[in-house]
């Protein structure tokens, strides 16, 4: 009967677009440019591309192979490989659940900014006026208008994780919308997802291209691109560069969540996933580099604008203090004029030096930001300086939304597919089940819309997935190479594709990738231990800056819980399988003895 046959993609193109949409996400836009800047600009491409070949493509290929062969979600697939390893699938589902809970908050923020872009003056361009109407609000003056809009009007952030308050209505509404939209995309399983990904995978490239053209025509953009891409080869000697390249490839491709296994499980048995795996991995890295160029152009523009504003403020200060005519000092001759004044009025100039800012284009370009801060603060600031800023704002946040939604599709499919494989859920219809999962995640996710919600978000972001994923994928690759056996795996692939994987793949799976992953894993453990008490950035409204604060005890306990809950699934499930097997084994032995007797 058609009812029990597994769902499948409308065409192999849909599968590939789904993988692209999932892999190309916010990390390509806000993490890779930062790493590029931190680790020597153009030189970073060398470790990055090397890690892509050593670790990225082989592991991606492996996960697709498992999914397509087993035709089950992560739990079912790993149980089929070895009953002791059902915990690997379970750990993937738990990690995906954590990710789903907090990832849609970012989409809620994108919605919020998108909706607020439909105003004549962008609300993050100017500070709101204080109650006496004598000047801007103090918190906004000490920080910048974009920071104020993000921390106060979007998040209404509390001074620390310990203080809390009620739910921010605007945020909550946007989160509800984000989840309803997610539900719309997955309501009929891969049939609906397959259609959506045509748009979510391709439209961001259009926007990035438009931004590339806009970016390069902006004043000062070339400064940014030149500065960031100038390779600083000495960074290659720093081991942290290589580790960051490896982790970036690893997380950017979305390995270990079970999404790739889930997506591949809906493929036709003989689908040529080898070509697709290579294509998607390279598209993902290519997109990162493309996004980095755009980001650096925007950075260059922003840095130049800030530098010129700084010079402008200095000019006004000089004009007012020395009562010079307005056209005597311009931005071009300001430095000479300063020298002149220093010699003619040394005493007055010395009094002034306390208020004189040090304007430097280099230091503006050096300020590197990553994460939500880059996307929602730095970028929005740059947009306010562009002509026709409402249009650019709408376009930009729409792109962020598509990138985030595309990744969400993979995340939520990683939870739904394995759970749907169980017999007990077969009675519930697709729509009700999917709706139930979305509702569950929405209700828990509302906690992130409270004043301290952003701190919990950071906690989940930093600890919820990183460590457990490394462990999961390490177990995965060791299982496939040694427990399941590389020969058996080879034969499965030959069964599906018609030819065996060549020596490159086998060496990567058996030797290189496991060693790399073990290295990363050890490095992470050492960093955790050496790092001491985990800290977070708390927004101090009196100073108008983020300050590093230690997590309180309950925060540290929760971090521990996050780490342990997903990782411990593997040994616990193995133990469970062991006990079950023993029980079955005992029963069999008894039946044999009675027969013999």
């Amino acid at each position, binding site marked *: *009967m058609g009812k029990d046959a597994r769902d499948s993609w409308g065409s192999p193109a849909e599968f590939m677009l789904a993988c692209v949409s999932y892999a190309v996400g916010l990390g390509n836009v806000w993490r890779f440019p930062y790493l590029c800047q931190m680790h020597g600009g153009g030189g970073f491409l060398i470790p990055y591309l090397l890690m892509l070949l050593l670790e990225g493509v082989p592991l991606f290929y492996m996960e697709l192979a498992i999914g397509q062969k087993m035709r089950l979600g992560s739990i079912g697939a790993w149980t089929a490989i070895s*009953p002791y390893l059902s915990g690997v699938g379970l750990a993937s589902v738990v990690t995906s659940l954590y990710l789903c809970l907090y990832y849609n908050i970012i989409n809620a923020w994108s919605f919020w900014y998108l*909706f607020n872009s439909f105003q004549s003056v962008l609300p993050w361009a100017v500070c709101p006026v204080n109650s006496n109407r004598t000047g801007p609000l103090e918190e906004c003056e000490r920080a910048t208008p974009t920071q104020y809009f993000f921390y106060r009007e979007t998040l209404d952030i509390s001074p620390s994780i310990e203080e809390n308050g009620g739910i921010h209505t605007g945020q909550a509404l946007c989160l509800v919308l984000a989840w309803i939209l997610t539900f719309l995309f997955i309501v009929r399983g891969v049939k609906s997802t397959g259609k959506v990904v045509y748009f979510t995978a391709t439209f961001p490239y259009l926007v990035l291209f438009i931004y590339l053209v806009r970016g390069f025509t902006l004043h000062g953009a070339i400064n940014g691109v030149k500065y960031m891409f100038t390779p600083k080869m000495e960074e290659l000697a720093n081991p942290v560069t290589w580790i960051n390249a490896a982790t970036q490839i690893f997380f950017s491709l979305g390995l270990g969540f079970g999404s790739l296994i889930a997506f591949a499980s809906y493929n036709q048995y003989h689908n040529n996933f080898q070509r697709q795996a290579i294509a998607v991995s390279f598209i993902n890295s290519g997109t990162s580099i493309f996004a980095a160029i755009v980001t650096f152009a925007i950075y260059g523009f922003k840095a130049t604008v800030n530098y010129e504003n700084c010079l402008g403020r200095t000019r006004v200060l000089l004009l007012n203090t020395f*009562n010079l005519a*307005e056209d005597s000092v311009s931005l071009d001759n300001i430095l000479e004029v300063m020298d002149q004044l220093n010699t003619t009025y040394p005493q007055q100039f010395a009094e002034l030096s306390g208020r004189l800012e040090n304007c430097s284009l280099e230091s503006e370009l050096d300020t590197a930001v990553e994460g939500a801060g880059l996307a929602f603060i730095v970028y929005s600031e740059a947009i306010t300086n562009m002509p026709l800023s409402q249009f650019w704002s709408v376009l930009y946040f729409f792109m962020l939304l598509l990138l985030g939604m595309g990744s969400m599709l993979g995340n939520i499919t990683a939870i739904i597919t394995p759970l749907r494989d169980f017999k007990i859920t*077969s009675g519930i219809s697709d*729509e009700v089940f999917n709706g139930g999962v979305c509702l569950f995640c929405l209700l828990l996710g509302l906690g992130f819309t409270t004043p301290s919600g952003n701190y919990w978000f950071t906690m989940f972001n930093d600890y919820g997935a990183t460590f457990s994923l490394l462990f999961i994928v390490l177990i995965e690759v060791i299982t496939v190479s040694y427990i399941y056996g590389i020969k058996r795996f080879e034969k499965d692939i030959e069964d599906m594709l018609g030819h065996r994987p060549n020596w490159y793949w086998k060496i990567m799976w058996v030797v290189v990738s496991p060693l790399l992953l073990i290295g990363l894993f050890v490095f992470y453990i050492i960093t955790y231990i050496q790092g001491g008490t985990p800290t977070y950035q708390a927004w101090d409204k009196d100073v108008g800056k983020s300050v590093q604060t230690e997590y309180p005890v309950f925060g540290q306990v929760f971090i521990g819980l996050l780490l342990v809950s997903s990782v411990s699934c593997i040994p616990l499930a193995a133990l469970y399988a062991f006990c079950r097997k023993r029980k079955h084994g005992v029963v069999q032995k008894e039946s044999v003895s009675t027969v013999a007797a």
Partner: protein
Amino acid sequence: MLERVFLLLCFLPVLAAETCKPNTPNGHKVRLSIKTALGAEAYDWNENERFLFQSTMAYAMRNLKGENFTVSNIVVCDETPRVSFWFVVTSPNDPSKVVSKGEVEEAVRKSRNRINQAFMLSDSTLEFIGILPTLAAPVEPPTPTWLIVFGVVMGMVLAGIVILLALSFVQKKRKKNKKADVEEEEDDEGTQVQTAENGATRVDYYNNSFADDERFTHM
């Protein structure tokens, strides 16, 4: 008599000059940034512009106090190329008396808009040092703009879901009716349709994996 008037007239500017000097307690500093505000259309600061300033300030004082302030009651001094200067306001009844700082401030605040417009400048380009401008009250629309856009998008998404669910419901009903017709025909044959699939769909893992083991036996 004539001499006395002449002496007084000569004395007056001296008196006024003494009361107006930089940092005088009842004086105010004014700074104009004409070139910043008007760029190519900037006018030069000359005697006539100064006269305009004196007359607008006299107007502002009249507006506040109702006394007959004239141009000579506004004393300007210490002009700089920046275009900044100090001024004091003397009382029309007694030219040696200087109007207090507070009153001048009040007058400026009251007529700030008119003073700005006389010079085609704004609060930031025509500065009275020490007198903070009252910023315009923020315009709050009755419904925040974002809520309107949110409503539109939410409506579209909900409509999409309803349509999709209705479509799938209708499709399922059609399939059920078709199946009912097909089953009536096949009942006599009593055939069991077996699904041949690659791999398992909904299974009990632990038992099935033992079965699967046989599939992967070594050659």
